[in-house]
């Protein structure tokens, strides 16, 4: 039990430092042009990575084909200009329907 409490406390402090250090230290500091260019590209890379990791899971344990049609539906809905939430709900509905039918 002590191990659990210690681990949670340590992780909470580490998280605080990770997120707080940059804003506290850097302040109004502006990155160089090359750094800023890379930072501008970071969201797209991170999002694409998150999608892959979410779909496949650790050791690909979460890989499930029914998520792909749902994801495609959400993507097409977005390209048609639907709001974010509607896109997600459409995707979830397709995946849920496939799982129910399967």
């Amino acid at each position, binding site marked *: 039990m002590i191990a659990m409490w210690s681990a949670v406390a340590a992780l909470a402090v580490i998280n605080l430092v990770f997120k*707080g250090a940059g804003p*506290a230290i850097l302040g109004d500091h502006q990155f160089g042009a090359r750094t800023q260019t890379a930072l501008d590209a970071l969201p*797209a*890379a*991170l*999002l694409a990575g998150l999608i892959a990791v979410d779909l496949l899971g650790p050791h690909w344990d979460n890989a499930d084909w029914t998520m792909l049609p749902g*994801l495609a539906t959400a993507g097409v809905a977005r390209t*048609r200009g639907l709001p974010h939430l509607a896109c997600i709900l459409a995707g979830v509905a397709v995946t849920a329907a496939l799982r*129910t039918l399967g």
Partner: protein
Amino acid sequence: MRTLRSFLARSPARSPARSPARSPADSRADRPVAGKPVNSWWAGLRVGLGLATGAFALAVTFGAFAVTHGWPAGLTILMSLFVFSGSAQFTLVTTLTSGGVGPAVAGAALMNLRFVPMAAATARSLRGGRWWRAVQGQAVVDGSWVSAQRADGTFDRDKMLAATLVQWPAWVLGTAIGALAVPSTSIIHTAGLDLVFPAFFLVLLLDSLSASSRLIPIALAAAAIAGVSCRFLPAGVALLLASLAALSVLWMPTPAPANRRTRPAGELAP
């Protein structure tokens, strides 16, 4: 496919934000809510609602997962309250069961290492003194950070704060329900709720790519790196490696200055 192409072609080139060729109107477009904090908060709340839906579903799963792995419900809820990071929390619960405190904390910390550069990037968009900026930096979570980024590389602070403030209680509440009720995870699976996060990340990614089509190869490379990496490595490490794909932009030819309206990643469609 044609639809996707036309969507991406809508505003194809997010040129370097500091391009001198941009008109004042473009600058205003990049900061659609600058000077209108209420709109920023409202936009953040709307983005946060979608993210919170996914966070809630995932949190219910996490709460049930932790309790079935021998964690007390109270501590599980406290962890969500103070750590607020799904991937790190799952890692901690999993690895503490099979290893010691040190490896478990190290593995979970590795998951969150990406927050160091992400939070640092927000530094000049935050307000107040050193400590207050550090407090605001705690609002950096993946979805909020991405949706708050403006085309010029700065961040809409209010939007990020609002989006996170919606997700945080959803994450804690979902954990509490999962930890106390311990519902079957098959319910979440059957309802397709595990699709919420990837679907939300996809629509944010499409927004980002529609603003800058030159990021498409970077996104594809990042997806491939993450997909292969997570087969063998922890998810946090896979994400870190995927983030490195962003560095390839440094070797890309600089696009010609464009005088077009751009759309920041995560800006909501009308």
